[in-house]
């Protein structure tokens, strides 16, 4: 009897699982939609939280700068080393600056910056808001007639959106500098010549849209991290899940958005 019940139970689980997963999937997106609508309402209605926004821009921007700069520098160095090895075979080392510029500014810089910020800032926001949620700090704020969506969520999302392009430019700059340094180790070249060669066949359409697509990356990181934080339940476990969920989901949405945005950019700026 016990084994029959066990089998029945396990069969029910097997049949129930897809239904439950589908239900959770749609529930999550539904809640995200409601969250975004409330965020939009709070963000556009005065008064604006200027001081808190500046504090969040410092948290998201200034404090992420070392990590993003290091990641950009490493990426630039690796691109230089790998392209040198490949292009040297064909005697085309003069193309190295152009390859570094195009690779970094069009794709590597934005995506590396996005993933770095998703890791650092996404986890921080998810954990901070999650912790505030489970310790009733958000309830306390609401009870004292302060809109937590305006004060906590909108400021963080706007800070992520505004800081992403600046962080991306920093990563690009560091990547170009380390790319030049690596190239100079084998074929000494001045920085001016390196930059001239890199930008010779490029115009603003090559670099501006990829940099500005990071506004969308910032939006994704801010919204997902705040959403995960604000829906935290339970104690320390819930906070941990919120932080992990923020990083995993914002990284996932970021790479999917990157594919779509690249397609759109190529269509609009051929």
């Amino acid at each position, binding site marked *: 009897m016990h084994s029959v019940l066990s089998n029945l139970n396990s069969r029910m689980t097997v049949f129930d699982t897809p239904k439950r997963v589908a239900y959770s999937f749609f529930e999550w997106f539904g809640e995200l939609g409601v969250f975004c609508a409330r965020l939009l309402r709070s963000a556009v209605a005065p008064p604006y939280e200027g001081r808190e926004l500046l504090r969040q821009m410092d948290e998201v921007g200034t404090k992420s700068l070392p990590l993003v700069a290091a990641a950009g520098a490493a990426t630039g160095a690796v691109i230089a080393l790998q392209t040198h090895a490949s292009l040297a075979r064909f005697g085309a080392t003069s193309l190295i600056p152009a390859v570094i510029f195009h690779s970094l500014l069009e794709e590597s810089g934005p995506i590396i910056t996005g993933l770095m910020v998703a890791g650092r800032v996404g986890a921080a926001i998810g954990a901070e808001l999650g912790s505030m949620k489970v310790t009733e700090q958000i*309830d306390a704020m609401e009870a004292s*007639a302060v809109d937590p969506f305006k004060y906590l969520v909108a400021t963080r999302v706007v800070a992520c959106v505004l800081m992403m392009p600046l962080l991306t430019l920093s990563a690009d700059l560091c990547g170009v500098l380390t790319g030049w340094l690596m190239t100079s180790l084998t074929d000494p070249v001045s920085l001016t010549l390196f930059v001239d060669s890199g930008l010779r066949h490029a115009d603003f359409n090559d670099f501006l849209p990829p940099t500005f697509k990071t506004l969308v990356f910032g939006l994704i990181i801010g919204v997902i991290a705040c959403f995960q934080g604000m829906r935290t339940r339970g104690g320390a476990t819930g906070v941990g899940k919120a932080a992990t969920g923020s990083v995993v989901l914002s990284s996932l949405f970021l790479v999917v958005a990157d594919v779509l945005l690249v397609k759109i950019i190529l269509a609009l700026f051929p």
Partner: protein
Amino acid sequence: MPREGTAVEVKQLRKSFGAQRVLSGINLKVAYGETLTVLGRSGTGKSVLLKLIVGLQTPDSGSVTIDGQDIAGLSPRDLNEVRKAIGFLFQHAALYDSLSVEDNVGFPLQRHTSMSASERKERVAQLLRQVGMEEHGRKMPAQISGGMQKRVALARALALEPRILLFDEPTTGLDPITASGIDELILQVQKRQGNASIVVTHDLHSARTISDRLILVLEGQAVAEGSYDELKQSQDEFVSRFMAQAA
């Protein structure tokens, strides 16, 4: 200037979370100058009741009236105006981690008053003095004890001189001396400002000290109401057992 009349009225309030019914038609009324204590076993929806009164949660049915105004139909802006008249002391203090003690107390003042920085500083110092925390203003919440956090949270709840005070287990988890200090503070504020106060507690000693009236909640409904002595002498089996066990 002490106010008169009914401050808070709860009628037939019902609230469920999924299949779990927490409140099933509770009624209560609190007047200005009065302290009502809500007693009951854990999980009977006492904290939920306070959150419904301040509009942090929405009831399934029933009404909450503050100063004669039903909060259900209020816009977020109007609801915030009502909330400014309410001070809420949370069970675990709920101080903002990222702000110092004095910034926690000054937060409502900064948000809702036109006080200058120096006026605000003076008011914060006065509030902290009132709760005996004037020397800890620069500390962060994590650097002070649970009892101190409760006192700071009380100072924050009093910052806007609210007409209505809600206390969620103000003395739970505190040593008897600190708990009695919190009771004393609540009594002082009540005497000075003539607030309407609702206290949720398991601490019968505290309830006896600060309450004018008590209600006992069972399965989401008020099953007994009266003064401490009236409840203590009740012939009802549950009431007498609760009062005896909790004492």
